[in-house]
């Protein structure tokens, strides 16, 4: 790129529910997004007049009641008359935004770009009024969400996301690497244990109860017995309910600048490389462990950044279904093929481990607010690089981090970030 781009400020709301969470209750979509955006601008030490453009991610207009988001948000964000647009790659959106903003800066058109994502999945406005909202059931929510999947052929052919994105990839892993169901189930227990432990230490996360506390609340002293109990049924065998996402409301934001020395209040994080790939359904062939688009996205992002897998200090992968922590971390080259499952059992992926992965809690623990979630992961990566990650801070601040996201349908975004000090 002509001009290097760096993340100079990050913001993120608490993830939870606008119906019940004290931090979110009573906020309109516009206000929730503004909260994240203002935190990012304050964090960068940048004022609205210095922002040249802003890009907004949001998936479900059913719940936000917003189209042409930049237009409707402009004065709420203090960015009236600035350039902006709505963009959408579903659940990878605020990862994709890093590359889009970097391109805008690289071209020389803009110096500072704000990217924000917001999503409300708990509820819809009543009588078109955002101030009175009513809860929605999971099936209605997924009816809208599934517009992210091919509705010409795939959806009508008995489409089932839990099998397609959870069960079949999990069975593929078992088969390819010779794991019994019991070994796989135990591995997924350790994955979720880490997910919930990290979330319990993250004040922005929706889930604040680790797996042990959840087990105790249901009368189990042994969390593995709880894992295998009726309280954790099969969403789609062999994938259990706790291996899936929890939907959430929330917003995230970051400021990307071509002048990181000017906004040096915090350690800047340079955007070293990125790549995006797309594929309609189906996402994999008979080897259900690997989406070819992920292989391409990692390869090309690494090439742009000039890194190799061995250079990666921290990896964050899309874990809407937690099996992808195993599969995508292997595609990323963070673990050898067929080996990551052992790393989860050995505790190597926690914030204390030598191969930290998704240490803010992922889409189950932080909660999944579709187009806000990738930004919350970027937020966490930047905090780790600065040494501001609180209770889950690594002993050594990561120098190179890679963020991977899937966007429903399927979009892949991979971004390589480097600590700029």
């Amino acid at each position: 790129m002509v001009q290097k781009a760096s993340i100079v400020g990050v913001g993120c709301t608490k993830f939870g529910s606008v119906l019940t969470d004290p931090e979110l209750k009573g906020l309109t979509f516009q206000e929730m997004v503004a909260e994240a955006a203002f935190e990012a601008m304050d964090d960068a030490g940048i004022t609205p007049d210095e922002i040249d453009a802003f890009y907004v991610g949001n998936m479900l207009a059913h719940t936000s009641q917003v189209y042409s988001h930049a237009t409707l948000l402009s004065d709420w964000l203090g960015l009236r008359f600035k350039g902006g647009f709505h963009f959408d790659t579903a659940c990878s959106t605020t990862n994709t935004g890093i590359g889009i903003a970097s391109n805008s800066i690289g071209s020389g058109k803009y110096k500072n770009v704000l990217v924000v994502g917001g999503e409300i999945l708990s509820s819809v406005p009543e009588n078109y009024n955002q101030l009175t909202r009513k809860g929605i059931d999971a099936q209605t929510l997924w009816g809208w969400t599934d517009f992210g999947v091919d509705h010409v052929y795939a959806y009508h052919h008995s489409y089932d996301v839990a099998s397609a994105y959870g069960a079949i990839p999990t069975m593929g892993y078992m088969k390819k690497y010779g794991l019994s169901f019991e070994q796989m189930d135990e591995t997924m227990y350790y994955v979720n244990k880490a997910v919930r432990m990290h979330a319990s230490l993250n004040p922005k996360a929706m889930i604040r109860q680790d797996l042990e506390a959840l087990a105790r609340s249901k009368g189990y002293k042994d969390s593995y017995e709880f894992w295998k109990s009726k309280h954790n049924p099969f969403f789609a065998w062999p994938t259990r309910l706790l291996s899936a996402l929890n939907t959430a409301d929330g917003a995230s934001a970051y400021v990307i600048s071509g002048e990181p020395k000017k906004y040096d209040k915090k350690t800047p994080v340079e955007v070293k490389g990125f790549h995006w790939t797309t594929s309609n359904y189906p996402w994999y062939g008979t080897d259900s462990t690997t989406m070819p688009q992920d292989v391409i996205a990692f390869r090309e992002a690494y090439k742009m950044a000039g890194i190799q897998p061995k250079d990666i200090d921290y990896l964050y992968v899309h874990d809407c279904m937690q099996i992808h922590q195993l599969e995508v971390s292997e595609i990323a080259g963070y673990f050898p093929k067929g080996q990551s499952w052992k790393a989860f059992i050995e505790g190597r992926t926690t914030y204390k481990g030598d191969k930290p992965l998704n240490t803010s809690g992922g889409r189950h623990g932080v909660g999944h607010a579709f187009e806000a979630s990738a930004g919350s992961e970027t937020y966490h990566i930047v905090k780790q690089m600065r040494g501001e990650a609180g209770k889950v801070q690594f002993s050594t601040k990561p120098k190179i981090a890679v963020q991977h996201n899937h966007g429903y349908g399927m979009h892949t975004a991979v971004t390589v970030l480097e600590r700029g000090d």
Partner: protein
Amino acid sequence: MEFRTAKKFYDNLAKGKIYGIRCRKCKKYTFPPLLRCRECSSESVEWVVMKGTGKLHYYSSTMLPAIKFVGEPPSAYGLVEMSEGPVFLTKINNADISSPDSIAKGNKALPLPVKARVRKIAGMDIVTFDIKK
């Protein structure tokens, strides 16, 4: 160029014919039919009737069916490698989903040959598969 690919596909399903496309350039099949070859993007494709045979590699069943299928009985959803090459995921009519153990046992026996059957599900004719027993 005729763009009404989906209509032609579904209209033929109603007559019991399962169409795909075959690429004249790379010789690969795309199923269901698209406007261009899914493998090499060539526009030079011909409509072909699929054999309707293949192998079932995996199947499972969800506790949260997509909203369109809420009124339908619980269903098995599986990955079929069609004889012509394409992978297709759809309803498997006779796969045992009566319990988690039966899904586990059913998958242990895979891959197994399958035969396509057009069925009207949730108001539309779709391609489903039966495991050959």
